């Protein structure tokens, strides 16, 4: 004796947020029922385990049927099969495209390829995020990547429009796409202390200032790639470290400005040339794709780590970078003000964001 068939279809599609989350998290029906029972829905509604099972099955089926629509969220709005109130639609989309920071941290900057997908079981084991959920998140990244890769115009806006995501989520996806496209290295041990949000912030800075779209939104090319011309120009900054006079002049200007204002003045003064060389070398090398990938590891190795070992505070850091940037403009033989500002603006905010434990 068994229930062979059991369906419930509402004119307005009924979706339980809690069950949806369980589904998204990759729970099997039986596990989901257990979780729900523990959650105490049963007592609340005088239901039995059977009822709960039937309801969960039903909802899972609905979600599965909705899933292909969720792959193209715009379709969800003008499909006829499910009548879902707009606020529900928004919820469905937002949650479907939501991701675990732990998971994204693992694949950030990796090529969104089949190879990476095959390794997801390791990622799953490492992060504790279920494989199903990992796959969904990975596929989401890939789907968004594929769609916006070809599109013109501002990256965040494109994502928001095509996937109907809320602003913050769209920004995060922009970061993921940007990282995946430029294959930034994020998995090195030294970078592990950085959270996804740190990277997302940096990505935002890079997108807003270093891509072609940042200069001219009407350009053919898009937000996804860095502005080649700018990268080329960055080589010119090398003069700041190759020209001995300029380097000394720069140092003295910064030291004058900072004297007495910071507790780590001595360390700063001693390290100035190293630090400056580090930052300028990063700039000069960015023209090589390989060095672009190492951008963050370089920032950490060349700049953040030395400062941290000298026990700079964030305030010290901020002061130094501000004066370091500004002083360069006073140097009379230094001509590349525009490039310098564009470069240092991003570097400063990135470092400030990344400078934590």
């Amino acid at each position, binding site marked *: 004796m068994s229930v062979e*068939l059991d*369906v419930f279809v*509402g*004119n307005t599609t009924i979706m339980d947020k809690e069950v949806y989350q369980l589904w998204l998290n990759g729970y099997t029906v039986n596990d989901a029922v257990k979780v729900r029972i523990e959650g105490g829905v049963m007592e609340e509604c*005088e239901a039995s385990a059977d009822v709960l099972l039937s309801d969960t099955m039903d909802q899972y089926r609905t979600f599965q049927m909705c899933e292909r629509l969720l792959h193209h969220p715009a379709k969800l709005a003008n499909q006829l099969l499910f*009548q879902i109130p707009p606020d529900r639609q928004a919820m469905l989309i937002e949650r479907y495209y939501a991701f675990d920071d732990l998971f994204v941290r693992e694949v950030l900057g990796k090529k969104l390829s089949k190879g990476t997908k095959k390794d997801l079981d390791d990622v799953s084991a490492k992060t504790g995020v279920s494989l199903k959920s990992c796959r969904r998140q990975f596929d989401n990244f890939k789907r968004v990547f594929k769609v916006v890769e070809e599109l013109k115009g501002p990256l965040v806006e494109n994502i928001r429009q095509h996937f109907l995501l809320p602003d913050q989520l769209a920004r995060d996806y922009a970061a993921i796409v940007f990282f995946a496209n430029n294959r930034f290295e994020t998995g090195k041990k030294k970078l592990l202390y950085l959270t996804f949000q740190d990277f997302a912030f940096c990505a935002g800075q890079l997108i807003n200032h270093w891509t072609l779209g940042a200069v001219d939104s009407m350009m053919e090319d898009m937000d996804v790639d860095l502005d080649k011309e700018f990268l080329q120009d960055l080589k010119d900054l090398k003069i700041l470290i190759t020209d001995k006079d300029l380097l000394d002049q720069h140092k003295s200007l910064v030291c004058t400005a900072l004297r007495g204002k910071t507790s780590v003045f001595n360390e700063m003064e001693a390290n100035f040339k190293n630090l400056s060389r580090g930052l300028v070398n990063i700039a000069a090398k960015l023209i090589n794709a390989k060095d672009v990938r190492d951008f963050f590891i370089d920032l950490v190795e060349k700049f953040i780590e030395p400062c941290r070992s000298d026990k700079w505070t964030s305030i010290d850091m901020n002061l130094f970078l501000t004066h370091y940037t500004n002083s360069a403009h006073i140097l009379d033989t230094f001509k590349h003000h525009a490039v310098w500002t564009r470069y240092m603006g991003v570097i400063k905010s990135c470092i400030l964001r990344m400078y934590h434990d």
Partner: protein
Amino acid sequence: MPGKLKAKIVAGRHLPVMDRASDLTDAFVEVKFGNTTYKTDVYPKSLNPQWNSEWFKFEVDDEDLQDEPLQITVLDHDTYSANDAIGKVYIDIDPLLCSEAATVISGWLPIYDTIHGIRGEINVLVKVDLFNDLNRFRQSSCGVKFFCTTSIPRCYRAIMVHGFVEELVVNEDPEYQWIDRIRTPRASNEARQRLIFLMSGELQRKIGLKVLEMGGNAVVGYLQCFDLEGESGLVVRAIGTACTLEKISTLPSTATHQSNSSPSKDMKDSPQAAPSTLGCRSTHSSPVHSASSRLSQGFSVSVPTLLFAGMKPRHRSSEAPRARQCRPVFGEEVPGIPLSSGPPTPLRAQTFSSFSPSKSYSRQSSSSDTELSLTPKTGMGSGGSAGKEAGPLKALLRQQTQSALEQREYPFFTLTSFPSGFLLHVGGVVSARSVKLLDRIHNPDEPETRDAWWEEIRQEIKSHAKALGCHAVVGYSESTSICEEVCILSASGTAAILSSRFMQDGPLDTEHRLSRQPLVFSTGSERVEGDMGSSASLGFEEVVPPGCGFCHIPYDELNIPFPAQLTYCYSCRRSKVPDVLFTTIDLPADANITGKGCLIQARLCRTKKKAQGEGNATAISNLLPFLEYELHTQLMNKLKLRGMNALFGLRIQISVGETMLLGLASATGVYLTALPGPGGIQIAGKTPSDITYEQHISNMQKKINDTIAKNKDLYEINPPEVVEEIIGSPIPEPRQRSRLFRSQSESSDEVSELDLSHGKKDAFVLEIDDTDAVEDIHALLTDSPTPQGFYSCNTEIMPGIQNWTSAIQMFTSVRVFRLNNANLTNQGLNKIFSDLCENLLKSLYFKLRSMVPCCLCHLNFTVAIPEDELIQVAVTAVAMSFDKEQILENGKQSGEKTLTKAITENDEQLQFNLELNPESSHANPLSSPKGLSEVGSHPSARAPSVDYSSFADRCSSWIEQLRLKAHTIRRGSVKTTSSMEKASPLPEGRSRSLRSNRSYSGTSVAVVKMTPLSFIPGAKIIKYLGIINMFFIRETTSLREEGGVSGFLHSFIAEVFAMVRAHVAALGGNAVVSYSMKECVFMENPNKNQAQCLINVSGDAVIFVRESELEAASVQPQSTTHTSNGGEGT
């Protein structure tokens, strides 16, 4: 030639990829009507083609227009091989043929394929130009409006109710044609779908013709079903009630009332109802009443005797057949009384034999035994009332109706709720069943045999009604259950006596005026009324108290056709009422009830031996009476267990399978204030010797008593019995007497004496003599109560609940249960079946928990035995939330929204008073009579009624205004759906509110509400766009891949909903009311990874406007209203 159909193919979207190489599709469209086909160009390499075709024009007969659907096929062009079909859209153009319905079909419609389901959407525009030629001999019936709604539709007024119309067409089932062996499943499914479309069209046209013949212009309560007989054919049959409807226009008061969600609200324009305020007592205060009661004086003396004469012989002669197949009323107090004890089984053999009485024969027989009782009556009536003022005309009118009813072959009405004053008395449920063998049909392709079968059953129903002293059957429906070659035909309804008001020619106003005139007769008639006593039940035009009148027995109490205990009405104390009342109709809106109602189900399984042919038919017909008897006993027990005394919306479904019979009876139980309270349930054991046994019994007794007490509490049933006992007054509520006229006190005293006779209420005794009985009692107690915050009923609205919010959720749930163990006892099966239904209900409650407090309305269960060992239960219902707070923050709104009769009554009363003496109106409502406040209504209800009347006028003007704009509004919504039409020049306020409604969704898909009810809470239906009647087949050969049977059916039902919504939206509507899923035939073959399902759904497409929007619209300058009113003129 009198019609030109025009279609334009605009665009497609979300098409499937048909060319794997390019991941694109080269789509084009074929548009076919009749034998003409047009094609669009191929739109290459796109999943969102823009054809933007020319207008394809079809010049066709209106007959074809009615029969044929427009068939749109989307194909993928293939240069080298045959073009692949993507899918089809069938468009029923019937709504376009009626001037008052839709004018254009425009929107995105799902492209449907019977194997793949929905595959993208297509945007089409369809129009019809009809040329008028009314005078020629017509085969078409364009312009006859069809409604699934089983009451007078909201924005119409019934001028006349003509009566029963039925039709039946037969065709060979394509699935059983020889060609089916060589064609693809897709071709076969499509042939079937198309055939059913054609047959429905033909059926509708033929019914329309009958309606025109009768002089009507609409069919209300249209119920179409199809029977898949298999080898012998495919039958599509329909029944309905022909009416002459009038769009509510200028009369402001009428407009409000008709369009109001409660049918009772049109009371005001019904002269009969108006005078009688609540209950009988106050009738005397109204001059109108006295006029009419005076009229009936003439009949009171002679008629009863005449009737006896007519009834008695009939009774005897029909006893056997009646007992055989039907149970006219389920009023039996003790189980085992005649109906069950000695059904003369031999007679039953006759039912499945191919014997079929010819029409003429049956007609004769009916006139011989039935008309006797009524024809003389009318004669007497006119004679008796001659010489009385205003009498002759009235009597004449009555005579006309009476004879009009008699002339009708079947005085049946598919309506379940009525304009108030129409339904006078209810006798009880009448039903008839008959077992037939399909392989015995001589001429399977012709409808004659089936016609004769139904003829037989209807005659039987008719004679049952007569036996109950009734001249009409209301809430009538027919159904079949087929298993292999055996077919059970069933019909049931409620015997009733109807007022002639809607059945005579000429508008109601004649009578209206007539009954109002003679203020003079206010004295003297009271006595007459008193004398009349039971003659009140004879079906004459006596004024019936609205709250309890329908409960008064229509039959003669000295010659009760079945055992029942009669008492004097607890409400008016004037007429006799039965102790229990079973009906198939909705609770009349003006009925007085105590507490709330609830869903009551009796479920039964009976095993049967596998058999063939006649043996099988005999076995089934032998089982039927027992099945019915047990169902009724169960219903009765459960009713008593809930402390209630009446059932409404009773629907008994008997389903036949190879090895078992299933019976499911659903109804909504209520406590009618007019009926005596139900006695308890007494358990008696057979072997009193054993002490433990005694204890066991007393334990059980205690349990039952506890349950009854708990239920009474739960459903707030606390009838004012105590008051009655103590005071010894016949009038339950002392307060009301103070408002009544003193002069009446004597008469009421008289009644109280009479009253003593019925004093004791016998408890219902259940004997436990075997294990079966124990099981039965256990089963009684296993029905779990509805969870907190939930109510359920299978009628339109829940008695005792009001304040519906606008949140509604229609749903369909289907379960199939496999009985793996073949050797089950009846008890075991019963338990399984009962649990299945209970669990399904529990699941529904759980699913809908977010809507609490809410009521599941119109819970419609359908059971089937798709194959051996499978039980299928399908439920369609609507969950509606309501405000728990009965506080009426906004008098107007709640006055509008609420449907309870409590308020209605107050309204009616109030309005009546307003009409008669406006000055006193404000004093009245507060002192308004009746133990209403006790009867489950609330003091607060009175306040809004004051408001409401003023609101009425205002509202009606908006209605006018909106009605005129309906067309425009529809356009507006079409525009939003399809972005095809230009924005219409809407008045600012209107368009804004519409837009806000849609833009809030932020999508291009308009929301379409669906409900099995005839109304939408918190909204007004401003236009009916036509009937939706769709039939789909879905088949799969990859069942596992589609998520198994559940996945398959889940997506199919979702697709059906989607297609219904899309077609409604294309008609310009935003809701489907009276929606029902009439058929859901599911077949599977998991071994072959295959499944097939057929679904038939129907409903009325409407445009509704939220009341809040209406109010917004009211801000508009009055001038608009006036001009539009003038413009309308009709």
